[in-house]
Protein backbone atom coordinates (compact mmCIF):
# COMPACT_ATOMS: atom_id res chain seq x y z
CA UNK A 1 0.00 0.00 0.00
CA UNK A 2 2.97 2.25 0.56
CA UNK A 3 6.56 2.28 -0.60
CA UNK A 4 9.50 4.34 0.59
CA UNK A 5 12.35 5.03 -1.79
CA UNK A 6 15.60 6.51 -0.51
CA UNK A 7 13.89 8.46 2.25
CA UNK A 8 16.17 10.67 4.34
CA UNK A 9 15.39 13.25 6.98
CA UNK A 10 17.77 15.95 8.13
CA UNK A 11 16.52 18.41 10.76
CA UNK A 12 17.14 22.15 10.43
CA UNK A 13 19.83 21.93 13.14
CA UNK A 14 21.81 19.57 10.87
CA UNK A 15 21.04 16.32 12.68
CA UNK A 16 20.55 13.51 10.21
CA UNK A 17 17.79 11.38 11.68
CA UNK A 18 17.19 8.97 8.80
CA UNK A 19 19.31 7.97 5.86
CA UNK A 20 18.24 6.18 2.71
CA UNK A 21 15.27 4.21 3.97
CA UNK A 22 13.74 2.01 1.30
CA UNK A 23 11.06 -0.53 1.91
CA UNK A 24 7.52 -1.23 0.98
CA UNK A 25 4.57 -2.11 3.10
CA UNK A 26 1.84 -4.41 1.85
CA UNK A 27 -1.79 -4.25 2.82
CA UNK A 28 -2.55 -6.24 5.96
CA UNK A 29 1.03 -6.42 7.25
CA UNK A 30 1.96 -5.83 10.87
CA UNK A 31 5.34 -4.14 10.76
CA UNK A 32 7.47 -3.52 13.83
CA UNK A 33 10.06 -0.76 13.62
CA UNK A 34 12.60 -1.89 16.19
CA UNK A 35 15.60 0.05 17.35
CA UNK A 36 17.30 1.82 20.23
CA UNK A 37 16.27 5.28 21.42
CA UNK A 38 17.31 8.01 19.02
CA UNK A 39 17.47 5.80 15.93
CA UNK A 40 14.85 7.87 14.15
CA UNK A 41 12.05 5.31 14.24
CA UNK A 42 9.53 7.83 15.55
CA UNK A 43 10.62 10.27 12.88
CA UNK A 44 10.05 7.59 10.26
CA UNK A 45 6.54 7.08 11.62
CA UNK A 46 5.87 10.82 11.45
CA UNK A 47 7.03 10.82 7.82
CA UNK A 48 4.63 7.97 7.06
CA UNK A 49 1.85 9.96 8.71
CA UNK A 50 2.83 12.97 6.60
CA UNK A 51 3.25 15.03 9.75
CA UNK A 52 6.69 15.84 8.40
CA UNK A 53 8.14 15.83 4.91
CA UNK A 54 11.27 13.86 3.96
CA UNK A 55 14.40 15.86 3.10
CA UNK A 56 15.17 13.45 0.27
CA UNK A 57 13.47 10.47 -1.32
CA UNK A 58 9.78 9.85 -1.67
CA UNK A 59 6.92 7.98 -0.10
CA UNK A 60 4.49 6.63 -2.68
CA UNK A 61 0.97 5.43 -1.96
CA UNK A 62 -0.52 2.68 -4.09
CA UNK A 63 -4.05 4.04 -3.78
CA UNK A 64 -3.27 7.75 -3.84
CA UNK A 65 -2.42 10.10 -1.00
CA UNK A 66 -4.41 9.28 2.12
CA UNK A 67 -7.15 11.73 3.03
CA UNK A 68 -7.85 13.12 6.49
CA UNK A 69 -8.65 10.31 8.90
CA UNK A 70 -7.33 7.55 6.66
CA UNK A 71 -4.27 7.26 8.86
CA UNK A 72 -4.80 6.39 12.51
CA UNK A 73 -2.05 7.46 14.89
CA UNK A 74 -1.47 6.28 18.45
CA UNK A 75 1.09 8.22 20.47
CA UNK A 76 3.32 7.06 23.28
CA UNK A 77 1.08 8.83 25.79
CA UNK A 78 -2.65 8.42 25.51
CA UNK A 79 -2.92 12.21 24.89
CA UNK A 80 -6.62 12.33 25.63
CA UNK A 81 -8.36 15.62 26.11
CA UNK A 82 -8.78 15.70 29.91
CA UNK A 83 -11.93 17.82 29.72
CA UNK A 84 -13.81 15.30 27.58
CA UNK A 85 -15.27 11.85 28.35
CA UNK A 86 -13.93 8.66 26.76
CA UNK A 87 -16.74 8.72 24.20
CA UNK A 88 -16.12 12.39 23.38
CA UNK A 89 -12.41 11.68 22.90
CA UNK A 90 -13.18 8.80 20.55
CA UNK A 91 -15.79 10.91 18.73
CA UNK A 92 -13.22 13.66 18.03
CA UNK A 93 -11.91 12.47 14.62
CA UNK A 94 -15.49 12.14 13.36
CA UNK A 95 -16.45 15.49 14.85
CA UNK A 96 -13.57 17.18 13.04
CA UNK A 97 -15.01 15.90 9.78
CA UNK A 98 -18.41 17.33 10.56
CA UNK A 99 -20.29 14.24 11.70
CA UNK A 100 -23.25 14.76 14.00
CA UNK A 101 -22.87 13.41 17.51
CA UNK A 102 -26.14 11.44 17.56
CA UNK A 103 -25.38 9.76 14.26
CA UNK A 104 -21.82 8.88 15.29
CA UNK A 105 -22.46 7.65 18.84
CA UNK A 106 -23.39 4.04 17.93
CA UNK A 107 -20.09 3.74 16.05
CA UNK A 108 -18.18 5.36 18.93
CA UNK A 109 -19.75 2.94 21.42
CA UNK A 110 -18.99 0.00 19.14
CA UNK A 111 -15.31 0.92 18.88
CA UNK A 112 -15.09 1.43 22.64
CA UNK A 113 -16.60 -2.03 23.10
CA UNK A 114 -14.08 -3.41 20.61
CA UNK A 115 -11.20 -2.23 22.83
CA UNK A 116 -12.98 -3.58 25.92
CA UNK A 117 -14.27 -0.30 27.31
CA UNK A 118 -17.96 -0.65 26.49
CA UNK A 119 -18.95 0.36 30.01
CA UNK A 120 -16.71 3.41 30.23
CA UNK A 121 -18.10 5.69 27.54
CA UNK A 122 -18.95 8.44 30.01
CA UNK A 123 -15.76 8.23 32.09
CA UNK A 124 -13.34 11.16 32.16
CA UNK A 125 -9.66 10.33 31.52
CA UNK A 126 -8.80 11.26 35.13
CA UNK A 127 -10.80 8.28 36.38
CA UNK A 128 -9.23 5.75 33.99
CA UNK A 129 -6.06 3.71 34.54
CA UNK A 130 -3.04 4.03 32.24
CA UNK A 131 -3.99 0.91 30.29
CA UNK A 132 -7.58 2.05 29.90
CA UNK A 133 -6.48 5.47 28.67
CA UNK A 134 -4.34 3.77 26.04
CA UNK A 135 -7.35 1.68 25.01
CA UNK A 136 -9.36 4.88 24.53
CA UNK A 137 -6.48 6.28 22.50
CA UNK A 138 -6.50 3.17 20.27
CA UNK A 139 -10.28 3.41 19.89
CA UNK A 140 -9.87 7.04 18.82
CA UNK A 141 -7.39 5.95 16.14
CA UNK A 142 -9.72 3.19 14.93
CA UNK A 143 -12.98 5.11 14.83
CA UNK A 144 -12.32 6.76 11.48
CA UNK A 145 -11.69 3.31 9.94
CA UNK A 146 -8.13 4.11 8.86
CA UNK A 147 -6.42 1.97 6.26
CA UNK A 148 -3.12 2.38 8.06
CA UNK A 149 -2.59 2.38 11.80
CA UNK A 150 0.65 3.97 13.04
CA UNK A 151 1.63 3.36 16.64
CA UNK A 152 4.55 5.09 18.38
CA UNK A 153 5.66 2.97 21.36
CA UNK A 154 2.10 2.99 22.68
CA UNK A 155 2.68 0.49 25.48
CA UNK A 156 6.11 1.65 26.63
CA UNK A 157 4.80 3.45 29.71
CA UNK A 158 2.56 0.61 30.91
CA UNK A 159 3.32 -2.08 33.45
CA UNK A 160 4.21 -5.57 32.23
CA UNK A 161 0.80 -7.17 32.95
CA UNK A 162 -1.17 -4.42 31.27
CA UNK A 163 1.28 -4.38 28.37
CA UNK A 164 0.91 -8.12 27.73
CA UNK A 165 -2.85 -7.89 27.78
CA UNK A 166 -2.88 -4.93 25.42
CA UNK A 167 -0.42 -6.65 23.06
CA UNK A 168 -2.67 -9.70 22.92
CA UNK A 169 -5.78 -7.58 22.36
CA UNK A 170 -4.08 -5.49 19.69
CA UNK A 171 -3.01 -8.59 17.89
CA UNK A 172 -6.44 -10.15 17.83
CA UNK A 173 -7.89 -6.81 16.77
CA UNK A 174 -5.44 -6.75 13.88
CA UNK A 175 -6.31 -10.30 12.89
CA UNK A 176 -10.01 -9.56 12.89
CA UNK A 177 -9.81 -6.23 11.07
CA UNK A 178 -7.03 -6.96 8.59
CA UNK A 179 -5.67 -3.45 8.99
CA UNK A 180 -2.11 -2.51 8.09
CA UNK A 181 -0.16 -1.60 11.22
CA UNK A 182 3.26 -0.01 11.67
CA UNK A 183 4.34 -0.27 15.28
CA UNK A 184 7.40 1.49 16.72
CA UNK A 185 9.00 -0.22 19.68
CA UNK A 186 12.32 -0.66 21.44
CA UNK A 187 11.32 -4.01 22.89
CA UNK A 188 12.54 -7.10 21.05
CA UNK A 189 9.89 -9.21 22.78
CA UNK A 190 7.13 -6.87 21.76
CA UNK A 191 8.29 -6.78 18.15
CA UNK A 192 8.61 -10.56 18.00
CA UNK A 193 5.22 -11.10 19.58
CA UNK A 194 3.26 -8.64 17.45
CA UNK A 195 4.78 -8.31 14.02
CA UNK A 196 4.67 -10.24 10.80
CA UNK A 197 7.82 -8.41 9.73
CA UNK A 198 10.45 -6.68 11.86
CA UNK A 199 12.56 -3.83 10.50
CA UNK A 200 15.62 -3.47 12.70
CA UNK A 201 17.05 0.03 12.67
CA UNK A 202 20.57 1.15 13.44
CA UNK A 203 21.17 4.41 15.29
CA UNK A 204 22.34 7.83 14.05
CA UNK A 205 21.53 8.21 11.27
CA UNK A 206 18.73 5.67 11.27
CA UNK A 207 18.94 3.02 8.58
CA UNK A 208 17.24 -0.29 8.10
CA UNK A 209 19.90 -2.72 9.25
CA UNK A 210 17.93 -5.90 8.82
CA UNK A 211 14.55 -7.19 7.92
CA UNK A 212 13.13 -10.35 9.45
CA UNK A 213 9.90 -12.08 8.58
CA UNK A 214 8.22 -13.77 11.47
CA UNK A 215 7.01 -17.30 11.00
CA UNK A 216 5.74 -17.72 14.54
CA UNK A 217 2.51 -19.70 14.46
CA UNK A 218 -0.70 -18.09 15.62
CA UNK A 219 -2.22 -19.35 18.81
CA UNK A 220 -2.63 -18.83 22.49
CA UNK A 221 0.81 -20.22 23.32
CA UNK A 222 2.57 -17.75 21.08
CA UNK A 223 4.58 -16.14 23.86
CA UNK A 224 6.17 -19.43 24.90
CA UNK A 225 6.41 -21.07 21.47
CA UNK A 226 9.84 -22.33 20.46
CA UNK A 227 9.90 -20.40 17.17
CA UNK A 228 9.00 -17.19 19.07
CA UNK A 229 12.00 -17.69 21.33
CA UNK A 230 14.16 -18.44 18.28
CA UNK A 231 12.97 -15.19 16.70
CA UNK A 232 13.84 -13.22 19.85
CA UNK A 233 17.33 -14.76 19.80
CA UNK A 234 17.81 -13.95 16.13
CA UNK A 235 16.70 -10.33 16.53
CA UNK A 236 18.85 -9.91 19.64
CA UNK A 237 21.87 -11.08 17.68
CA UNK A 238 21.20 -8.60 14.91
CA UNK A 239 20.71 -5.73 17.35
CA UNK A 240 23.99 -6.56 19.08
CA UNK A 241 25.72 -6.44 15.72
CA UNK A 242 24.29 -3.05 14.68
CA UNK A 243 24.81 -1.27 17.98
CA UNK A 244 28.09 0.66 18.18
CA UNK A 245 30.44 -0.74 20.83
Amino acid at each position, binding site marked *: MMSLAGVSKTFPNGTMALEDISTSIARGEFIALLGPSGCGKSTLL*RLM*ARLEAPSAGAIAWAEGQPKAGEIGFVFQDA*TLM*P*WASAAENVFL*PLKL*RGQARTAAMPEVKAVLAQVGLGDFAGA*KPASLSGGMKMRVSIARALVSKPKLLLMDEPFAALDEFTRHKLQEDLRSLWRQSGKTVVFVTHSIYEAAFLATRILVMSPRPGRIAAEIRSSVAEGAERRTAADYIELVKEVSGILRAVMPA
Partner: protein
Amino acid sequence: MNKTLERAAPFLFGILGLGLWQLAVWGSGIPVYVLPGPIAIVQAYAGDFGTLNAAFVSTLSVAAAALLVSAALGVVLALAMAASTLLRAAIQPWAVILQVTPVVAIAPLIIIWGNQPFMALVVCATVVAFFPVLSNTAAGLAATPRDLLDLFRLNGATRLQTLFLLRLPAALPYFLAGLRISGTLALVGAGVAEFVAGSGGFSAGLAFRILEAGYRLEIARMFAALMLLAFAGIAIYGALGLLSHLMLRRREI
Protein backbone atom coordinates in the same frame (compact mmCIF):
# COMPACT_ATOMS: atom_id res chain seq x y z
CA MET B 1 -15.21 17.12 64.12
CA ASN B 2 -11.63 18.05 63.31
CA LYS B 3 -12.79 19.26 59.89
CA THR B 4 -15.44 21.52 61.44
CA LEU B 5 -12.88 22.98 63.79
CA GLU B 6 -10.54 23.60 60.86
CA ARG B 7 -13.29 25.39 58.96
CA ALA B 8 -14.13 27.52 61.99
CA ALA B 9 -10.50 28.25 62.82
CA PRO B 10 -10.07 31.46 60.79
CA PHE B 11 -13.26 32.91 62.29
CA LEU B 12 -12.34 31.92 65.84
CA PHE B 13 -8.88 33.40 65.32
CA GLY B 14 -10.45 36.60 63.98
CA ILE B 15 -12.84 36.89 66.91
CA LEU B 16 -9.95 36.32 69.32
CA GLY B 17 -7.94 39.05 67.59
CA LEU B 18 -10.87 41.49 67.62
CA GLY B 19 -11.50 40.76 71.30
CA LEU B 20 -7.88 41.41 72.24
CA TRP B 21 -7.90 44.59 70.12
CA GLN B 22 -11.03 45.88 71.92
CA LEU B 23 -9.58 45.01 75.32
CA ALA B 24 -6.31 46.77 74.45
CA VAL B 25 -8.19 49.89 73.34
CA TRP B 26 -10.26 49.91 76.52
CA GLY B 27 -7.36 49.12 78.79
CA SER B 28 -4.93 51.68 77.39
CA GLY B 29 -7.43 54.50 77.02
CA ILE B 30 -6.02 55.32 73.59
CA PRO B 31 -8.20 58.01 71.94
CA VAL B 32 -10.61 56.95 69.22
CA TYR B 33 -9.03 59.34 66.66
CA VAL B 34 -5.78 57.40 66.94
CA LEU B 35 -7.00 53.81 67.18
CA PRO B 36 -10.69 52.94 67.37
CA GLY B 37 -11.74 49.55 68.71
CA PRO B 38 -13.90 47.12 66.73
CA ILE B 39 -17.06 48.29 68.48
CA ALA B 40 -16.44 51.91 67.49
CA ILE B 41 -15.80 50.79 63.91
CA VAL B 42 -19.07 48.87 63.74
CA GLN B 43 -20.83 51.91 65.20
CA ALA B 44 -19.23 54.13 62.56
CA TYR B 45 -20.35 51.72 59.86
CA ALA B 46 -23.90 51.65 61.21
CA GLY B 47 -23.91 55.44 61.43
CA ASP B 48 -22.90 55.89 57.81
CA PHE B 49 -24.53 52.77 56.41
CA GLY B 50 -25.96 54.24 53.19
CA THR B 51 -22.91 56.19 52.06
CA LEU B 52 -20.44 53.41 52.80
CA ASN B 53 -22.55 50.76 51.13
CA ALA B 54 -22.94 52.94 48.05
CA ALA B 55 -19.15 53.35 48.05
CA PHE B 56 -18.79 49.57 48.33
CA VAL B 57 -21.06 49.00 45.33
CA SER B 58 -19.24 51.71 43.38
CA THR B 59 -15.75 50.28 43.96
CA LEU B 60 -16.87 46.73 43.39
CA SER B 61 -18.54 47.63 40.09
CA VAL B 62 -15.41 49.44 38.86
CA ALA B 63 -13.31 46.41 39.79
CA ALA B 64 -15.77 43.98 38.20
CA ALA B 65 -15.98 45.99 34.99
CA ALA B 66 -12.19 46.23 34.86
CA LEU B 67 -11.94 42.49 35.39
CA LEU B 68 -14.34 41.79 32.52
CA VAL B 69 -12.44 44.13 30.22
CA SER B 70 -9.14 42.58 31.35
CA ALA B 71 -10.41 39.07 30.65
CA ALA B 72 -11.61 40.00 27.16
CA LEU B 73 -8.53 42.08 26.34
CA GLY B 74 -6.13 39.51 27.78
CA VAL B 75 -7.66 36.63 25.82
CA VAL B 76 -7.84 38.59 22.55
CA LEU B 77 -4.22 39.74 22.82
CA ALA B 78 -3.07 36.25 23.84
CA LEU B 79 -4.83 34.79 20.80
CA ALA B 80 -3.22 37.37 18.55
CA MET B 81 0.18 36.54 20.04
CA ALA B 82 -0.41 32.81 19.60
CA ALA B 83 -1.56 33.28 16.00
CA SER B 84 1.50 35.10 14.73
CA THR B 85 5.06 35.51 15.93
CA LEU B 86 5.10 38.96 14.34
CA LEU B 87 2.17 40.08 16.47
CA ARG B 88 3.79 38.50 19.52
CA ALA B 89 6.97 40.46 18.91
CA ALA B 90 4.94 43.64 18.41
CA ILE B 91 2.65 43.29 21.44
CA GLN B 92 4.74 41.69 24.16
CA PRO B 93 7.12 44.58 25.02
CA TRP B 94 4.26 47.06 25.19
CA ALA B 95 2.23 44.84 27.46
CA VAL B 96 5.25 44.59 29.76
CA ILE B 97 5.86 48.36 29.67
CA LEU B 98 2.23 49.03 30.56
CA GLN B 99 2.51 46.48 33.36
CA VAL B 100 5.68 47.88 34.94
CA THR B 101 4.62 51.54 34.80
CA PRO B 102 3.10 52.40 38.20
CA VAL B 103 -0.59 53.13 37.74
CA VAL B 104 -0.36 55.96 40.28
CA ALA B 105 1.78 57.78 37.74
CA ILE B 106 -0.56 57.35 34.77
CA ALA B 107 -3.87 57.58 36.63
CA PRO B 108 -3.97 61.43 36.68
CA LEU B 109 -3.54 61.47 32.90
CA ILE B 110 -6.27 58.91 32.34
CA ILE B 111 -8.59 60.81 34.68
CA ILE B 112 -7.96 64.03 32.73
CA TRP B 113 -8.40 62.38 29.34
CA GLY B 114 -11.43 60.27 30.21
CA ASN B 115 -14.40 62.60 30.12
CA GLN B 116 -16.59 59.95 31.70
CA PRO B 117 -15.41 59.26 35.31
CA PHE B 118 -16.61 55.64 35.50
CA MET B 119 -14.82 54.81 32.27
CA ALA B 120 -11.63 56.51 33.46
CA LEU B 121 -11.64 54.47 36.68
CA VAL B 122 -12.23 51.26 34.74
CA VAL B 123 -9.37 52.07 32.37
CA CYS B 124 -6.99 52.62 35.30
CA ALA B 125 -8.02 49.38 36.98
CA THR B 126 -7.73 47.51 33.69
CA VAL B 127 -4.17 48.75 33.16
CA VAL B 128 -3.27 47.18 36.49
CA ALA B 129 -5.29 44.01 36.07
CA PHE B 130 -5.01 42.75 32.51
CA PHE B 131 -1.45 41.48 32.46
CA PRO B 132 -1.84 38.22 34.43
CA VAL B 133 -4.74 37.13 32.20
CA LEU B 134 -2.69 37.95 29.11
CA SER B 135 0.51 36.23 30.16
CA ASN B 136 -1.21 33.17 31.64
CA THR B 137 -3.51 32.67 28.65
CA ALA B 138 -0.57 33.10 26.27
CA ALA B 139 1.38 30.49 28.26
CA GLY B 140 -1.63 28.16 28.17
CA LEU B 141 -2.07 28.52 24.42
CA ALA B 142 1.62 27.84 23.90
CA ALA B 143 1.46 24.74 26.10
CA THR B 144 -1.12 22.91 23.98
CA PRO B 145 0.07 19.28 23.83
CA ARG B 146 1.98 18.76 20.58
CA ASP B 147 0.61 15.26 20.07
CA LEU B 148 -2.95 16.53 20.19
CA LEU B 149 -2.08 19.24 17.66
CA ASP B 150 -0.70 16.48 15.41
CA LEU B 151 -3.85 14.46 15.91
CA PHE B 152 -5.98 17.41 14.84
CA ARG B 153 -3.79 17.85 11.75
CA LEU B 154 -4.07 14.16 10.84
CA ASN B 155 -7.82 14.48 10.93
CA GLY B 156 -7.85 17.54 8.73
CA ALA B 157 -8.98 20.01 11.42
CA THR B 158 -9.42 23.63 10.38
CA ARG B 159 -7.70 26.44 12.29
CA LEU B 160 -10.97 27.39 13.93
CA GLN B 161 -11.64 23.80 15.01
CA THR B 162 -8.16 23.56 16.47
CA LEU B 163 -8.72 26.83 18.32
CA PHE B 164 -12.13 26.09 19.78
CA LEU B 165 -11.87 22.35 20.35
CA LEU B 166 -8.27 22.18 21.49
CA ARG B 167 -6.28 25.34 22.13
CA LEU B 168 -8.87 27.25 24.16
CA PRO B 169 -9.97 24.30 26.33
CA ALA B 170 -6.31 23.43 26.92
CA ALA B 171 -5.58 27.02 27.97
CA LEU B 172 -8.62 27.28 30.27
CA PRO B 173 -6.88 26.35 33.55
CA TYR B 174 -4.09 28.84 32.80
CA PHE B 175 -6.65 31.54 31.97
CA LEU B 176 -8.55 30.91 35.22
CA ALA B 177 -5.35 31.06 37.28
CA GLY B 178 -4.53 34.40 35.63
CA LEU B 179 -8.06 35.64 36.24
CA ARG B 180 -7.74 35.02 39.99
CA ILE B 181 -4.63 37.17 40.15
CA SER B 182 -6.23 39.82 37.94
CA GLY B 183 -9.32 39.90 40.17
CA THR B 184 -7.48 41.18 43.22
CA LEU B 185 -5.35 43.49 41.05
CA ALA B 186 -8.52 45.02 39.57
CA LEU B 187 -9.56 46.03 43.09
CA VAL B 188 -6.12 47.50 43.77
CA GLY B 189 -6.34 49.42 40.50
CA ALA B 190 -9.83 50.69 41.31
CA GLY B 191 -8.63 51.89 44.71
CA VAL B 192 -5.59 53.68 43.33
CA ALA B 193 -7.68 55.34 40.63
CA GLU B 194 -10.16 56.58 43.23
CA PHE B 195 -7.36 58.05 45.33
CA VAL B 196 -6.32 60.06 42.32
CA ALA B 197 -9.75 60.86 40.95
CA GLY B 198 -11.53 61.83 44.13
CA SER B 199 -15.29 61.78 44.01
CA GLY B 200 -15.65 63.85 40.85
CA GLY B 201 -18.82 63.03 38.99
CA PHE B 202 -19.17 59.32 39.65
CA SER B 203 -20.49 58.09 42.99
CA ALA B 204 -17.49 58.02 45.33
CA GLY B 205 -15.86 54.68 46.04
CA LEU B 206 -14.35 53.17 49.18
CA ALA B 207 -10.83 54.43 48.59
CA PHE B 208 -12.17 57.98 48.31
CA ARG B 209 -14.15 57.48 51.54
CA ILE B 210 -10.96 56.34 53.26
CA LEU B 211 -9.14 59.50 52.15
CA GLU B 212 -12.10 61.68 53.13
CA ALA B 213 -12.42 60.10 56.58
CA GLY B 214 -8.67 60.55 57.07
CA TYR B 215 -8.87 64.28 56.33
CA ARG B 216 -11.71 64.63 58.82
CA LEU B 217 -9.97 62.52 61.47
CA GLU B 218 -12.92 60.11 61.44
CA ILE B 219 -10.61 57.20 62.02
CA ALA B 220 -13.37 54.74 62.94
CA ARG B 221 -15.14 55.47 59.66
CA MET B 222 -11.84 55.07 57.85
CA PHE B 223 -11.49 51.61 59.36
CA ALA B 224 -15.09 50.79 58.41
CA ALA B 225 -14.37 51.64 54.75
CA LEU B 226 -11.15 49.65 54.92
CA MET B 227 -13.07 46.68 56.28
CA LEU B 228 -15.51 46.90 53.35
CA LEU B 229 -12.59 47.10 50.91
CA ALA B 230 -11.10 43.94 52.37
CA PHE B 231 -14.51 42.31 52.12
CA ALA B 232 -14.74 43.30 48.45
CA GLY B 233 -11.35 41.64 47.86
CA ILE B 234 -12.46 38.46 49.60
CA ALA B 235 -15.71 38.45 47.59
CA ILE B 236 -13.85 38.76 44.27
CA TYR B 237 -11.29 36.13 45.20
CA GLY B 238 -13.96 33.73 46.45
CA ALA B 239 -16.18 34.20 43.41
CA LEU B 240 -13.31 33.54 41.02
CA GLY B 241 -12.23 30.52 43.04
CA LEU B 242 -15.75 29.14 42.80
CA LEU B 243 -15.89 29.86 39.06
CA SER B 244 -12.62 28.05 38.52
CA HIS B 245 -13.76 25.09 40.63
CA LEU B 246 -17.01 24.80 38.69
CA MET B 247 -15.29 25.00 35.32
CA LEU B 248 -12.45 22.62 36.07
CA ARG B 249 -14.06 19.96 38.24
CA ARG B 250 -13.60 16.42 36.96
CA ARG B 251 -10.70 17.54 34.81
CA GLU B 252 -7.22 16.18 35.14
CA ILE B 253 -5.54 19.55 34.86
